[in-house]
């Protein structure tokens, strides 16, 4: 059954049909949220929230664009959650300069590539992480990214470029050690 058919059924009062959309999109949304927020619990909370908001606003969704529309809600929820997390971290990390100068020695001990990637991704500024994930992991065109983020195409290209450079530098350093 297509997304559009399910959306029509839910709008007609078949609330249970929404579960099909949740199952269909849960993992894709979860993947973006986990990578963006770096925390599985936060990611689950944000994904739940995105689905509930989508359900409440379903009347505004174009039937054949449910997926992109839902993803747009998630991107915004991640931004809000990320800001909260940033504030939370600022409460605890008082010496940002020392933290930034901490050598990558800790990372060299990580045998697990997954953990290394997570570590490097977490060291990107949120704005760079977002652009990198949308472009290279979600495989979006720049026009689509612009609709989600509100940033111009040239700014997004620059963010992706800077994200790639930063990741390359971080991971090359780790591999060299």
């Amino acid at each position: 059954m297509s997304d559009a058919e399910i959306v029509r059924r839910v709008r007609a009062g078949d609330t249970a049909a929404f579960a099909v959309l949740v199952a269909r999109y849960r993992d894709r949304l979860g993947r973006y949220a986990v990578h963006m927020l770096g925390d599985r619990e936060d990611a689950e909370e944000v994904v739940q929230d995105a689905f509930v908001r989508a359900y409440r606003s379903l009347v505004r969704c174009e039937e054949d664009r449910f997926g992109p529309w839902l993803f747009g809600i998630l991107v915004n929820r991640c931004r809000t959650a990320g800001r909260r997390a940033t504030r939370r971290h600022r409460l605890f990390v008082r010496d940002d300069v020392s933290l930034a100068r901490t050598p990558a020695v800790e990372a060299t001990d990580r045998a697990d590539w997954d953990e290394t990637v997570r570590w490097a991704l977490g060291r990107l500024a949120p704005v760079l992480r977002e652009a990198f994930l949308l472009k290279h992991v979600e495989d979006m065109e720049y026009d689509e990214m612009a609709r989600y983020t509100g940033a111009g195409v040239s700014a997004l290209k620059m963010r992706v470029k800077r994200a790639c450079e930063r990741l390359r530098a971080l991971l090359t350093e780790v591999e060299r050690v």
Partner: protein
Amino acid sequence: MFERDDDVLERVVERLRAPIEMDPTLDARVMVRVARTSRGLDWLARGWEWLRRPRDLAITPLAAAGAVAVLAGLAVWLGSRAAAPATRPGTDTTVVQFILVAPSAASVSVVGDFNDWDATTTPMRPVRSGGIWSVTIPLPAGRHRYAFLVDGSRWLADPSAPRAPDDFGTPSSIVTVGG
């Protein structure tokens, strides 16, 4: 996708594209919240339907006079409220009006930390010819970050308010309520 020497980035992307399985109970938790929302929306829909359904009413002249008196009193009360200061007595919320001149816009909404940057929560209305868009909402005391979302895709800072630094590089403004 990447240059020839970007093997490391290829490996990063390969890793990040790998599926992530979320907690299997997530679906159930979502549907519980959806069901609660649904019950609330159903109640609203039924109430709205009840209000819209035409019906014949038998009313005595005395009751009609009473109803007119109540409506007149309500009108006077609402009029006095409109003239009152924007700050609601006994609360920390203040009514704030957002205005944007955007003659070529088909739609404008206010997004900010007060509505979780949700484009659907606070749509603005065209108030007169000349492309003036406006919306009035109550805001709690404090500093709020916000922006205008034009035609669902273009973010604009408020040209009449201080600019805010933004972690994501999109333009936004600051409004300070109270204090």
